[in-house]
């Protein structure tokens, strides 16, 4: 075992002991955080941080972390209170907290830079404390996408590579301080009867099962391309992932490749005690797929529902599972629709509510109690709609179980900010947060 793997296994074992009792409640994705993460916000969130793509000719044209005050008790409720530009445009995309929730990592899919923000010192005004610029040189991978907290570590899923900008890629492990630890290529050989395509997208870990799932999207060539051009390029359209991978977390070795056609994206585990399933949505085939362990301990993938009319390619791009794991929000980009699925019967999810929230929509994040649902608009700079349909916004809805009521909407173009993409919640209480292991962490 490599030293990095050995350390990770040990860290996970310790974390398992420490977190054993605290993992179970982390059923929601508030909206999709790692179960190793401390301090889930179960009450009212104070802030929403929006990782925003700079747009040439709008404001300073740079990617930025935008912070919005979302506490209704605040005089600045629903207003942008901070915008921290990081310089240039590099396809800002997703973010993830460190396990202690003191730092927020944010990545760019084009130039592969990773920005580490201190959100603990002053959650209302994040501070950029480190920029990692050498991921491609150190790993041969490109496009850091998912940032997933592990005990004292951050696991990063890349999307592409420096050899050909295709979809074959890997995972990268860093310390919380941003020091490179190890890399793990996605499988390209047959594992458990299905050949890996080597592609990556999201990470989802179930610590109780020692299982990590990864999903598969596409490489730089495709995610950077104009979407109209992409749809019409027959060769490019062949280059999307059609697999998920079941990994042994402690050894970081792939155990089984699952066939999940049509580019499975976000992974949402139910971490309820005794539950052994996760759900994902395939973007191209517009399907929900259940990943579940059978009585013999084998993992299987099963398509359980379609989303909208798959022939029209509605493009489900984000999902958010409810705290009780009985409901699932699904955003479909093409028709700007937010959909609610009742997943009480996992084998037969039912779409019970739909609402058009804009000309386009991408990310959906709900509060722990499920009463507040936030939506943003931007998918990828060159996939977003053009002209009047290129609405860029952050919107808050209240959900009463039957209907969504819009509370406010911030026009990110009118505010000269850019394209609103990934969201993470912030709270004033984070200032005093400690690591799950009890020791405060700080970047040097």
């Amino acid at each position, binding site marked *: 075992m490599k030293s990095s793997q050995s350390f990770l296994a040990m860290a996970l074992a310790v974390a398992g002991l420490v977190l054993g009792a605290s993992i179970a409640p982390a059923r929601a994705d508030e909206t999709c955080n790692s179960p190793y993460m401390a301090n889930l916000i179960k009450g009212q969130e104070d802030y929403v941080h929006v990782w925003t793509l700079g747009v040439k000719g709008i404001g300073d044209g740079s990617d930025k972390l935008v912070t919005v005050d979302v506490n209704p008790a605040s005089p600045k409720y629903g207003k942008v209170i901070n915008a921290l530009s990081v310089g240039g445009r590099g396809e800002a995309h997703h973010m993830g907290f460190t396990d202690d929730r003191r730092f927020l990592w944010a990545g760019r899919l084009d130039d592969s830079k990773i920005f580490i923000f201190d959100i603990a010192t002053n959650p209302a005004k994040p501070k950029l404390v480190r920029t990692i610029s050498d991921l491609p040189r150190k790993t041969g991978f490109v496009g850091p996408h998912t940032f997933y907290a592990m005990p004292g570590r951050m696991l990063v899923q890349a999307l592409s590579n420096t050899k050909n900008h295709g979809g074959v890629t890997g995972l990268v492990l860093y310390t919380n301080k941003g020091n490179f630890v190890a890399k793990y290529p996605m499988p390209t050989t047959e594992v458990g009867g299905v050949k890996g395509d080597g592609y990556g997208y999201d990470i989802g870990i179930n610590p109780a099962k020692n299982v990590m799932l990864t999903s598969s999207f596409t490489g730089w*060539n495709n995610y*950077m391309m104009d979407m109209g*051009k992409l*749809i019409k390029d027959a060769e490019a*359209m062949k280059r*999307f992932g059609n697999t998920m991978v079941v990994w042994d977390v402690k050894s970081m070795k792939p155990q089984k490749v699952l066939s999940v056609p049509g*580019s499975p994206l976000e992974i949402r585990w139910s971490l309820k005690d005794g539950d052994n399933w996760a759900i994902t949505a395939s973007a191209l085939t517009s399907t929900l797929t259940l990943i579940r362990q059978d009585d013999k301990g084998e993992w299987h993938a099963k398509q359980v529902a379609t989303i909208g009319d798959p022939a029209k390619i509605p493009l489900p791009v984000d999902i958010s599972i409810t705290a009780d794991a009985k409901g699932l929000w699904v955003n479909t980009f093409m028709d700007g629709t937010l959909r609610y699925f009742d997943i009480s019967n996992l084998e037969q999810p039912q779409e019970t509510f739909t609402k058009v929230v804009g000309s386009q929509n991408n990310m959906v994040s709900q509060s722990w109690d499920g009463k507040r649902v936030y939506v943003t608009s931007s998918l990828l700079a060159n996939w*977003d709609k053009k002209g009047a349909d290129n609405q860029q916004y952050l919107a808050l809805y209240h959900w009463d179980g039957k209907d969504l009521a819009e509370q406010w909407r911030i026009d990110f173009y009118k505010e000269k900010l850019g394209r609103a993409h990934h969201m993470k919640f912030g709270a004033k209480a984070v200032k005093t947060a400690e690591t799950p292991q009890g020791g405060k962490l700080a970047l040097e």
Partner: protein
Amino acid sequence: MTRPRRLFAIALWLAGQTALAGTPVPVKAPLGLPPVPVPQDNPLTREKIDLGRKLFFDRRLSPNNTMSCAMCHVPEQGFTSNELGTAIGIEGQTVRRSAPTLYNAAYMLRLFHDGREFSLENQVWGPLLAGNEMGNPAVGYVIERIRGLDDYRGLFERAFEQGPSMGTIGMALASYERTLVSGNSRFDRWYFAKDRDALSAEEREGFRLFSGKAGCRACHTVGARNALFTDHGFHNTGVGYARGMGGDRGYRVQLAPGKHAEVRESETASYSEPPPNDVGRFEITLDPADRWAYRTPALRNVALTAPYMHDGSIPTLEEVVEFYDKGGVANDALDPRMKPLGLTDEQKRALVAFLKALTGDNVEALIRDARRAAPGS
């Protein structure tokens, strides 16, 4: 001697010194190919080739460290991209045409699909400076960038006895590209070395059709002692016309293996940038007869360089043969040689079999050699 003449003489002397620097590399053309043309002012040397390879793969030759020549001309993908119809440049910008293969680029008399350049030394600056390819804003920007990189220290001086400049960067890249020569295919061993067993009966029949009924050889020429499979000319087959002048085209879009959707061009309007127009060689000559005409590609290693045509719109050799069998796409500038061929299915298979026999014997070696270079970032 007048002052201008003195300066000219000094410049000539300097060029001569530049040309003579380094360790000469003899170039032996493989079976089936003529001697590799090497400009007098840029003889091949080990130092230049190594430097050119390093530059070719270096992603730092774009402002945001994402694009190198090799990101579009991928060694494992026939020195083109098998995964894209038309290329993608910096920040995902649209490039109108496919990345042409660099196999045997040393022999090309005209470069780019529209033939707007004449030498590899000059050609390299096209992609380096194109805003939608590698995106460098100026020649000086590239030169200063390279000058600032520690790992290039002394390399230009060893290769050229001078530092990086517009000339030396072009010469280094051209020197590496000139090594991507690939021949000695099974066809060469059969046709030029008279090895009767080198081709199967079907492949031999394919060549007979290639030279006869199918009419391919009229443009993809084969000489008595060697064959480049190109006439270096420009022809309108209707591919460009169909793309530029076609109506509301339909596309069969793969959603997953075995699962497709039908999408019309008009349905993509909300998320498509306006497709760029492309009139081919006409854009260079302004001669109406050159509308939608593109350079005849050489066919060596053609089995490795899918998808085909200047816009990568035809995915397989089988479909290329089908396209020509139908006589291309009618338009008023269509090459008069484009006519329905009336090939049988058996003849089509034979043609494809022949085309697949044009793969050189050094492909793996060229890939191994290419990957000696690091991507830089």
